[in-house]
């Protein structure tokens, strides 16, 4: 099973195995990893599941859709080139994401 690494703003790491096809957001929320609010439950409506994807894992991610792009303009913490909505990231292989300071 692929591994998802969540890195808190203070550097603390949580590594979780998850089924292929599960979203990064759902992996965090269902296992109680703090830092992802996901108010809309994965419908790309709330921008409270923002993550920064770590450099080595940026290649091979699905493209950012128009809707995700608009939502990323609405994140509470600054948008960076590696910003993604974790509800739109289905896990295909190992990935590491850094959590922002705030989500709301």
């Amino acid at each position: 099973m692929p591994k998802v690494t969540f890195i808190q703003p203070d550097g603390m790491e949580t590594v979780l195995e998850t089924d292929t096809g599960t979203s990064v957001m759902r992996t965090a929320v269902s296992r109680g990893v703090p830092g992802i609010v996901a108010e809309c439950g994965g419908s790309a409506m709330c921008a409270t599941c923002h993550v920064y994807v770590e450099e080595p894992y940026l290649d091979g991610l699905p493209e950012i859709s128009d809707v995700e792009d608009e939502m990323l303009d609405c994140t509470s913490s600054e948008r960076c080139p590696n910003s993604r909505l974790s509800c739109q990231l289905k896990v295909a292989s190992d990935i590491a994401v850094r959590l922002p300071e705030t989500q709301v």
Partner: protein
Amino acid sequence: MTAQPVTAAVPELDLDPFSDEFLTDPWSAHELMREAGPVFRLQRYGVYGVARFDEVARVLADHETYVSSRGVGLSDFATEKPWRPPSLLLEADPPHHTKARHVVTGILTPNLLRSLKEGFQERADELVARVAARGGVIDGVTDLAEAFPLQVFPDFVGLPEDGRENLLPYGSMVFNTFGPRNRHFERALERGAKAQEWIMEQCQPGVPVPGGLGEKIHTAAAEAGYGPDEQARLLRSFLSAGVDTTVHGIGNALQCLAANPEQFAALSGDPSLARSAFEETVRFSSPVQTFFRTTSRETELSGVALPEGSKVLMFLAAANRDPRRWEKPNEFDIRRKAAGHVGFGFGVHACLGQMLARLEGECFLTALARHVASIEPAGEPVQQLNNTLRGLDSLPLRLTAA
């Protein structure tokens, strides 16, 4: 590997989910449906039903098999002419739906909603403080739950002051027409006819006040290539779905808080719980109880074969209390992590107004926490029976000002 066997044994239920008895108290029937099986048939209407969280979520997520363009009510648009031109959002499938939805998501963004917060909060504070100071018995529905959305929503859209009384009857009509042609459906059509005329007038390009949501939708729709009729129809979705739903959400929240004093005490002690209290209300009370889909092809769901053209009724409210998904599902707990419920739907048709609804709910409940010291029932609440919605007609309460 062989395919999973498709069994024919679908539980047949004799329940009528649109009867007065069911609509008054759906909860025990929901449990019966959940326990009957993952998929069941409602004999009376010849439709399938799903009431467990997993199956409801799966039907919501698979919009190619379970389509909306044949209507999200009992009536199948493939064989029956809809009573009004279908919604470009609710009653459409990708790719048409995708295009229409994108017109709106580009406008109703979290950033726009943040910019509304201060104004909404001021008005909620003003209203709640005034009603609490009045003393005596108040009606939680007309004095609060209707009053707040009816102030902020039409202003936000850019509607005139005159005629706003048409908003609630129109919404209630639309949601009734997703059910069978029962008493509620017929009466709703009668009462809504007058409201419909006013609503359609307000939806015309050029009518809403410049700067409001209405004008923004018209402009963005025009830019996307939609003609005047379609521009009007896009705005119509907001006037149909944007008022009764939030009114019921706020009314149900008041009812839950009055019935659970320890929960109200928690909210008073920490007004920052307001947003999660509203979320829990949407899970617990599900102001939108049900929606239908129609199968676009023969399919299989949890071992049950569904022919093409089957209507499938999703009991969102039952999924939101499925013990397979929720701990102590029948307890109203404002500290619960309620996110992930299906009260706003899920997937491509997920409620477009959900962030606005949350904002209204949060501002209202924050005001309640600030200005009200206690809230007690002062008589029997009266349920408003609607084929789709769950909410109150009246809620007698005694408030003590803080």
